[in-house]
């Protein structure tokens, strides 16, 4: 049977078109491709800007797949779409992609080039092709010749092309995975609208973000609570999402949820290495950037960002801590599970293996914090997080210091006369003060948060500078385990 040109195919650049109208009176060249075939992509990218014969690309794809293929390859040719069940490809007996077929004057099929063969295709098109390797490359099976697997041949690439990523590979949010993540929760229940674009954070979308991030269902109650906390107006996620500052949200987990979700609060507590820590923070971030539209370089205007913005979730090492944990300080029962969200910069590690008094160690931590946000910007009005390692915490506890005492001592140690602070970026308070007037690094000692985390050996604590001037406050939410 001689293949015909009567079929009408959807076009990417306009209304559906009959093949006969696309090729004209002939001769012309049809180039069959599909989006999962690397050789097709190679061929499309090597097509010349102009060809002596009319050239029509026929993509064996759905319309969205073909559109994504065209965005990736930007071929210099009209693209028509041979949607499932790929009737035109069958009719033209195209079993491999890419295949270029000459359509003779009058419509009959002529020579064909199967796979990528630079010289043969140049001969068919009548124009030289770029002299770049490879000169030849085998093609892939036509869609109609095999049973397709879910998601095509490369569903991970598909996720990148949809923009559903933070730059790392993600887990495709299939309906089955999202339902497993939801665990019977109402998919339509909304946690609120996510700034800046105001996408509605339905539980279904939050679950999709959790799947993308690589969470397991036991992590989802933490993700749900973190999103809920981040959308509390007191957190001002709008400002955090769009600021030029590098800051992003950190999630701090307390209570039995740490064990239930398999979080690491010990050695390497700030990561990497533990799935729960890595994915819970990432799920929140994906919700902010996908549902909320805070895409770096788009509406997320951060000049630099920081590596922790991919996702940052830590658990307090309550077992090694000599103090009441963060959630108890914030009014929750010791047995409750909570997440606290806080906006902060990248951590600054503070090594101190030599201090032998609590006063000396508090001064070291205070001096490290003095440089955060900007060295002469005193006082800061948003929250700074100190992650105190167990050995440092033990030294403070041995001196009889509770968290409140440590907070006070750090606050009192970070103080300078205004005259020393009139450099570069400084505050109106410094500018308007007398030279000898004392200025603290924080407006209030309550702007200092302390948690204990990390391994039992090694004297390294960390300080996370604030997202200053943003009017953001930490928000804590209880984790709900039931549906």
């Amino acid at each position, binding site marked *: 049977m001689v293949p015909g040109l009567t079929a009408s195919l959807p076009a990417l650049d306009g209304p559906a078109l009959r093949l006969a109208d696309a090729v004209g009176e002939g001769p012309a060249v049809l180039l069959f491709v599909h989006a999962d075939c690397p050789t097709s992509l190679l061929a499309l990218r090597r097509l010349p800007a102009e060809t002596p014969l009319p050239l029509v690309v026929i993509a064996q794809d759905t319309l969205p797949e073909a559109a994504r293929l065209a965005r990736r390859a930007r071929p210099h040719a009209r693209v028509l779409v041979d949607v499932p069940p790929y009737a035109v490809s069958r009719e033209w007996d195209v079993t491999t992609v890419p295949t270029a077929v000459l359509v003779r004057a009058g419509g009959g099929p002529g020579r064909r080039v199967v796979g990528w063969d630079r010289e043969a295709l140049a001969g068919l098109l009548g124009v030289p092709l770029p002299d770049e390797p490879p000169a030849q490359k085998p093609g892939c099976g036509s869609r109609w010749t095999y049973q397709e697997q*879910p*998601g*095509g041949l490369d*569903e991970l690439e*598909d996720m990148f092309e949809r923009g*559903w990523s933070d730059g790392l590979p993600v887990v*495709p*949010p*299939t*309906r089955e995975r*999202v339902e497993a993540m939801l665990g019977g929760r109402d998919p339509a229940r909304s946690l609120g609208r996510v*700034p800046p*674009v*105001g*996408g*509605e954070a339905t539980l*279904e*979308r939050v*679950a*999709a*973000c959790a*799947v*993308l991030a690589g969470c397991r269902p036991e992590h989802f109650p933490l993700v749900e609570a973190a999103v809920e906390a981040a959308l509390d107006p007191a957190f*001002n996620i*709008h*400002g955090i999402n769009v*600021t*030029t500052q590098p800051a992003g949200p950190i999630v701090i987990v307390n209570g039995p949820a740490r064990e239930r979700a398999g979080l690491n609060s010990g050695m390497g507590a700030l990561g990497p290495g533990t799935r729960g820590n890595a994915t819970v923070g990432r799920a929140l971030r*994906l*919700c902010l950037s*996908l*549902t909320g*539209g805070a895409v770096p370089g788009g509406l997320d205007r951060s000049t630099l960002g920081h590596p922790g913005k991919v996702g940052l979730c830590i658990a307090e090492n309550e077992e090694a801590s000599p103090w009441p944990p963060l959630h108890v300080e914030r009014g929750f029962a010791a047995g409750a599970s909570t997440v606290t969200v806080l906006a902060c910069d990248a951590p600054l590690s503070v090594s101190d293996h030599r201090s032998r008094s609590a006063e000396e160690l508090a001064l070291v931590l205070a001096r490290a914090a003095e440089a955060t946000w900007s060295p002469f910007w005193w006082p800061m009005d948003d929250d700074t997080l100190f992650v105190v390692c167990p050995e440092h915490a033990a030294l403070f506890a041995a001196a009889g210091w509770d968290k409140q005492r440590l907070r006070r001592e750090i606050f009192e140690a970070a103080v300078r006369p205004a005259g020393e602070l009139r450099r570069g970026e400084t505050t109106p308070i410094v500018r308007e003060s007398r030279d000898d007037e004392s200025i603290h690094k924080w407006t209030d000692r309550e702007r200092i948060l302390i948690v204990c985390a990390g391994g039992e050996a090694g004297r390294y604590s960390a300080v996370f500078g604030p997202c200053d*001037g*943003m*009017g953001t406050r930490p928000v804590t939410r209880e984790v709900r385990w039931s549906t």
Partner: protein
Amino acid sequence: MEYVSPLDPRVAQPVRPAPRPAGLAGRTVVLLDIRKARGDEFLDRLAELLHERGAATVRMAKETFSKPASGEVVAAVPLHGDLAVEALAD
């Protein structure tokens, strides 16, 4: 393959900018200060340039730079002028 999208399709549509004005003479321009440091200096200079071109100006301000303008401010801007300029500075 069916995936559950993390995107809200209702907000996927980009907002089309309003057409550019034909001219400035005789128009009133709202200069909206978002309260970022030195935004007022930028708007002062802009006001001078607009006045030279025959436009009148009205100064308004957001409550804080770090949050969206309140509904009251958003509603008031078109009542006070034909055009608006929002200042960002630092």
